[in-house]
């Protein structure tokens, strides 16, 4: 994209990008386990399927037109398009991506996994009550009309936010703010589950927290591809210094956030829960995402601590309301994404200086990026949500919700452990 074009393939960079793409794909089953463990037994499959379905449908959409819209030639910095990119027909497998020494197809794949996981993240807010058909249509529309433009604005070299200088290393705005705030709007449109009670209650208990912990572990693992692979945007070889930095800050932030959440919860509630610990992991990973290649490891620790504190408070506050963000997609991804995207402006040292080094300019840009993402995603989700509601309705019937979506929608039960 930028700079001189390297004529030959760099096998090391390509190796790392292939690996990273695979790692990001693995985050989807990881998310399925993370979310699937937290719902009631009768909805475990339906919840896992939300993530898996995104692999299939966005997997196809990305090849057909998603990549084209996100990374095709820019039309005014607003949207990409190249007829030759539809179906990737105009991307010979031997064509390299910019000066990074990797095949463009590998870049396509890496970006495609991001496009897959983002709508899957949203599904945490709508668990246990959304219609399958509506979910499917919604995520295709959302990916096309929300994700692709936003990715273009922030990551394409001609995107208007990119040109403005907004930093988003691996998806604080494009992925987490987008997913988190869209989740919020969709949860409001859907309304709470019939057993949801502000302040807790008896009825909603997680079916399998061992799955949730395992899912969090897979997410942590896959996130190294997510963040360290995103060095593809800034450096050749891709598996170089920035990738190493991003890997390190990712690890530091996740560890610090998990530890913080555990300690805070222990102090505040008297017990350190595994769900809290897992939420801490995710909050740290989310918050470091926009910052991974821009901050020092020790500042990543601080970022992790702050993210855990803020998200913890967000979860607590949300619990007092009627809002049923069932698995905290908003409180962790939305809020954590904002924390990260803003703090980049404070903590960054490369390629530009942040507040810590006396420069306030970047912070301003970050606020613009955050504001634009929130506004665009919230409005568009509202519009798309209402459209889908009009077309198919958003919620399953009360009977289906009571019986569980597994049996009613998928004709299956998650477990048969009786005999």
């Amino acid at each position, binding site marked *: 994209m930028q700079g001189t074009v390297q004529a030959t393939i760099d096998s090391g960079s390509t190796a790392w990008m292939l690996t990273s793409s695979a790692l990001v794909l693995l985050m989807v089953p990881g998310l399925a386990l993370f979310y699937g463990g*937290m719902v009631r037994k009768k909805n475990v499959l339906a919840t896992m399927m939300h993530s898996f379905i995104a692999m299939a449908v966005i997997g196809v959409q990305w090849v057909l037109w998603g990549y084209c819209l996100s990374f095709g030639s820019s039309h005014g910095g607003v949207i990409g398009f190249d007829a030759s990119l539809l179906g990737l027909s105009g991307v010979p497998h031997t064509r390299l991506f910019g000066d990074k020494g990797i095949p463009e197809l590998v870049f396509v794949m890496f970006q495609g996994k991001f496009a897959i996981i983002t709508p899957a993240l949203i599904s945490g807010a709508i668990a246990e009550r959304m219609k399958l058909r509506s979910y499917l249509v919604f995520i295709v529309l959302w990916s096309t009309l929300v994700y692709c433009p936003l990715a273009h604005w922030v990551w394409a070299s001609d995107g208007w936010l990119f040109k403005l200088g907004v930093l988003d290393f691996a998806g604080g705005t494009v992925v987490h703010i987008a997913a988190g705030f869209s989740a919020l709007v969709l949860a409001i449109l859907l309304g709470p589950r019939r057993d949801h009670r502000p*302040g*807790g*209650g*008896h009825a*909603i*208990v*997680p079916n399998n927290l061992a799955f949730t912990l395992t899912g969090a572990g897979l997410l942590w693992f896959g996130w190294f591809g997510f963040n360290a692979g995103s060095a593809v945007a800034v450096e050749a070889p891709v598996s170089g210094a920035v990738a190493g930095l991003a890997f390190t800050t990712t690890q530091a932030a996740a560890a610090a956030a998990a530890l913080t959440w555990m300690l805070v*919860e222990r102090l505040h*509630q008297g*017990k350190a*829960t595994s*769900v*809290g610990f897992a*939420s801490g992991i995710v909050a740290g990973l989310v918050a470091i995402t926009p910052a991974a290649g821009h901050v020092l490891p020790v500042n990543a620790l601080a970022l992790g601590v702050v993210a855990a504190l803020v998200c*913890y408070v967000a*979860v*607590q506050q949300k*619990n007092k309301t009627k809002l049923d963000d069932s*698995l*905290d997609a908003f409180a962790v991804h939305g809020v954590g994404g904002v924390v990260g995207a803003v703090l980049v402006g404070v903590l960054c040292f490369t390629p530009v200086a942040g507040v810590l080094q006396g420069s306030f300019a970047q912070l301003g840009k970050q606020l613009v990026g955050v504001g634009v993402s929130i506004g665009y995603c919230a409005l568009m989700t509202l519009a798309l949500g209402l459209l889908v509601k009009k077309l198919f309705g958003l919620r399953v019937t009360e009977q289906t919700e009571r019986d569980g979506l597994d049996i009613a929608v998928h004709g299956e039960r998650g477990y048969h452990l009786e005999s």
Partner: protein
Amino acid sequence: MKLIIAVIRPERLEAVQEELQKVLDEDDNYRITVDAVEGHGAQHGEVELFRGQAVRPRMIPKTRIMVGVNDKYVEPTVQAILRAARTESGGAVGDGKIFVTPLDECIRIRTGERGGGAI
């Protein structure tokens, strides 16, 4: 013949089995059927936390035992359960209850035997 049904604390099952063994049979072959149930009564369950909120379980896990006995064994069986199922230091809320119900007939499936001998 009576069918004795008792609801006890799960952690007391082992002790109850040991006591029953003493009164019902010299060797290991006392007979009993057990299942896991949930109870609601004076006792309140352990609060769980889920996503930052207290979830107060309506029900508490309990263990239910069912023993069919001949009449002269009713009282020893009840006493054995009382001895073993009661929390040390004089009983605590949630220790459970014993129900004694009439039993008209009892048949051993293996042999078809009926009545007291089949218990």
